[in-house]
C-alpha cells in the first residue's frame, strides 16, 4: 500500500460534479481530506490518498482527465 499527499484544484465549471465520489467508486483507493475551500468560484482540497501504486496512478490520471489540477502537496518542485 502506498500513500500520497495531494493538492487538487477544481476549475469553476467542475465544482458541482462529484468527482471524488467517482474516484472512490472506480478505483480501489481511500481518500482522507485534510483541508478544503470550496465556494461557488473555486474549489481546492488537500488530501491523502492510500492504495496500490497502480490504483493511485489511475485515479490521478482520471482526475486530470476531468480537468482537475493535481499536484503534490509541496506545489511545483521542479525548477528550471
Amino acid at each position: 500500500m502506498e500513500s500520497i499527499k495531494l493538492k487538487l484544484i477544481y476549475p469553476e465549471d467542475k465544482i458541482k460534479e462529484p468527482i471524488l465520489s467517482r474516484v472512490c467508486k472506480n478505483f480501489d483507493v481511500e481518500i482522507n481530506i485534510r483541508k478544503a475551500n470550496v465556494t461557488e468560484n473555486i474549489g481546492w482540497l488537500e488530501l491523502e490518498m492510500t492504495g496500490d501504486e497502480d490504483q493511485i496512478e489511475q485515479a490521478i490520471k482520471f482526475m486530470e482527465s476531468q480537468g482537475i489540477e493535481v499536484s503534490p502537496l509541496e506545489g511545483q518542485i521542479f525548477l528550471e
Partner: protein
Amino acid sequence: MAKVKALKCKECGKEYPVEPIHVCEYCFGPLEIEYDYDEIKKIVSREKIENGPKSLWRYVDLLPVDNPSVGLSAGFTPLIKAEKLGRKLGLNNLYIKDDSVNHPTLSFKDRVVAVALSKAKEFGFDTAACASTGNLANSVAANAAASGMNCYVFIPANLETNKIIGSLVFNPTVVAVEGNYDDVNRLSSEVANEFGWAFVNINVRPFYSEGSKTLAFEVAEQLGWKAPDAVVAPLASGSLYTKIWKGFNELKTVGLISDNSPRMYGAQASGCSPIYKAFKEGRDWIVPEKPDTIAKSIAIGNPADGPYAVKVGKESSGDMEIATDQEIIEGMKLLAETEGIFTETAGGTTIAVLKRFAEKGVFDPDEIVVAYITGNGYKTMEVLEGHLNKPIHIKPSLHEFKEKVIGIKVKK
C-alpha cells in the same frame, strides 16, 4: 538550551521535533523552524558576526545548523551603491545586492543549498536530490560533489541535455523522467517521501528555505546595521521574498537593528504571475498557471509559498508588479549598461519592476531601496540573441576604422 526549539506548523501551530519533515501531519500545513530568540539574544552580537567567516555562516546563530559543513564560501556577496541606475530612476540611495556572484554556482541557490545540505549531513543523510535543470541543480550538484554526497537530479526526459551541462559536470546521477513537468513534480514528491535522501526543496525544505534569510542579514550589516526602507525581490515559489522579510524581522527581534522592516515589493513575469494575481485580487489562495515566459528560473506556476508571500506583501505595506518578456530583457540591459552587472532573466524582472515602481513614485527619492539580483546572466545568454547591438564590420584598414567606427570622413 538550543537556539532551535522545534519545527512548527505555519497553519495550525502544532510543534514537531527537529527532524527531516516538512508537512504537518494534521492539517498538511508547511513546517517552519521555531527559534528560541531569548537564547539567541544571549549569544549573538554585531561584533561576533563581524569577526565571523566571510560567508553566510557568520550568521550561524540565526540559522538552523550547528556544524556548517557544506557551502562554506556561500554568501557574503557585494552590496553595490547603484549611482548610475539610481540617477536614471530618480533614486539617490539605490543599492544592488549582487548574488549573481555567489559561490560556487553564481546564484542565490548557493545559500539555501549550503544550509539544506549542512543540515542534511547533521541528520546523517549521504544523498542529496532535487528536480531542476537550472540554478538549483547547479548548486545541489556542485555542493554534493564538494562535500562527498551522492547526488540525484530529476528532469523531464524530453529536455535537451545541453540545458544541464552546468550540472552534469559535477557528475550527479541524472534521472530523465518520461513525462511532463507535473509528472516530474509528483514523482519527486513520492521519492522524497519514500527514500532516505535529502530532497532539498521537499523533506529538508524548512531548513533549505532559511538560507534566504541571509540575504536580509547581509544587507543590514552592509548598510551599517540598518534595514532599508524598501526592497524589490523576485517572486518564484514566494520563499525568498518571505524569508527576506523574516530575516529583517529577526534582526530586530534579537536587537541587532532597531529599524522597522522594509516595504516588500515583489516582481513576477507577466507570463507566470500567480502570486501577483492573488495579491491584486485580494485572494489568499493561488490559482496555478502554465508558465509562458523567458524568465524560466522564476516561472513557478504552482508556488508553495504563494499565500505567505501575499500576506507579507500586505503586512509590509508593499506591492507587486509584473514585467513582460521585452521589459525583462530591457531590465537586464539596463542593469548591465548602468552598473556593469550581467544578470539573468529573474534579475531583469526585478529591475523592470523596480523601474516601474520608481516611475509610479512609490519611493521617496532619498529612501534606501535595495534590489535583489539573484542569478547570473552568463548562464542564459541565449535570451538576449537579437536584442543587442551588432558588431561593426570593417576591413583591416585604418581608413575604414576611421570612417565606419569613429565617423571621420577621410579624404582620398
